[in-house]
């Protein structure tokens, strides 16, 4: 499994380098802006940074689907399918690699943002004051038990939902390759299927948990549970089709 993940990472290395390079450039821009006290530069850097963060997370999430589609379309599929790995392992490795990459991307951006905030704070106040502010923040954050609960379950919910999206994408691609092996524009068909399935999933979630307007952590837990089950089903479906039906 780890070997599969290693090569999955390596296949997708170029985009990470590009993202890091852009983060580097924007960071330099930001630091220059703060030191030279050019508010416009700082604001632009922060703005671009937020956009980059958003696009990066989106891209990294679905890169696995792009790579997968390319794998199936070209002869490079032989690399994967000649090896003694089960389809379940192959798909699993791809999903895990994506989760890891999204997590790391989040950490990188989060770290840079926090570092920038601290940097800004340090520039405009003394270091001692900055530390005090941070300590105060954490003291208050720890006291907000109930809200912490909600925040955590919200994060878990979002994470599971995100993973579900990725797995649905792979399912859609595999479905396309199973039944429409001779079709042109397989990518368009996959995308269309993706949205179709997503719509279907939404409908199911609405049906089972109709009262999404009143968000409590129980509701969210329920939805998370449903999404987890669906994720498992779509994962198994993808792997099964790949194992039994897809010819490369």
């Amino acid at each position, binding site marked *: 499994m780890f*070997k599969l993940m*290693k*090569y999955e990472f*390596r*296949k997708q*290395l170029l985009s990470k380098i590009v993202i890091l390079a852009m983060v580097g450039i924007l960071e330099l821009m930001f630091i220059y802006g703060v030191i030279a006290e050019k508010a416009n530069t700082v604001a632009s850097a922060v703005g671009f940074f937020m956009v980059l963060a958003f696009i990066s997370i989106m891209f990294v999430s679905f890169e696995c689907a792009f790579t997968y589609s390319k794998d199936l379309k070209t*002869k*490079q*599929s*032989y*690399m994967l*399918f*000649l*090896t*003694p*790995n*089960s389809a379940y*392992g192959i798909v699993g490795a791809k999903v895990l690699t994506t989760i890891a990459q999204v997590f790391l991307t989040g950490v990188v951006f989060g770290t840079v943002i926090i570092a920038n905030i601290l940097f800004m704070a340090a520039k405009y106040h003394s270091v001692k004051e900055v530390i005090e502010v941070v300590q105060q923040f954490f003291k208050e954050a720890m006291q907000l038990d109930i809200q912490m609960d909600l925040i955590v379950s919200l994060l878990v919910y979002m994470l599971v939902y995100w993973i579900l999206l990725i797995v649905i994408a792979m399912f859609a691609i595999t479905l396309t390759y199973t039944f429409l*092996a*001779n079709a042109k524009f397989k990518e368009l068909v996959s995308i269309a299927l993706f949205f179709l399935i997503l719509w279907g999933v939404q409908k199911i979630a609405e049906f089972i948990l109709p009262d999404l307007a009143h968000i409590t952590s129980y509701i969210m837990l329920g939805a998370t549970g449903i999404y987890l089950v669906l994720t498992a089903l779509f994962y198994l479906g993808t792997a099964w089709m790949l*194992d*039994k*039906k*897809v*010819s*490369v």
Partner: protein
Amino acid sequence: MLVCRDLVKSYRNKTAVSGISLDVEPGKIYALLGPNGSGKTTWMKIVAGLVKPTSGTITYNGEPIGANTKRKIAYMPTEPFFYDYMTIANVGKYYQDFFDDFDPNRFEELIKQMDLNMTDKAKSLSSGLAAKLKIAATLARKAELYLLDEPLNGVDIIARDHVITAILEAANENSSIVLSSHLVDELEKIIDNAVFIKDGSMVLCGEAEKIRAERGKSIVDLYKEIYA
């Protein structure tokens, strides 16, 4: 070793393999003969687990084709397929990572013999060199069943000797090799059995020596007759 019965693979507008029954025994070298499009490649891909058959049965040592059989079966496709970013050394490492029977020393030996460098990028190799790389990677595995699809294609005449030698060195009483080719005369001397495929079906199959004696002609001449 490999048992295949009534194997069929049909696509929407064509039947690539129409009912092939073939057994592969250990310790033998088979030639899978026939022109392009006759079904040889599809058959090999089914055995390799890349293509799923429409009907029929195929087992390797009693097991259906799957992750387990891929451990023992080494398939060399006609097309280049390594990842774009890979150097020859990367290719070796990949094989080493996934195949227990891969021998990195043998790989190095074959690479040197074929006049390749570990630092060359797989993507930038000419078709002749790319063909040699594929052969080196595949034959560096100590597999039980080798499926080599057109191993001499694109290989210059001098290097062909090296390829044939490498194939002969991979042959032993526990392994079998199935070679598909339309360069019949190169293979005539090294094979045990010949299998003639035409339009997806097997038209003739048996020991090369017996066929030659019964028909009174070489495999090459027989080939010309069958596919004229």
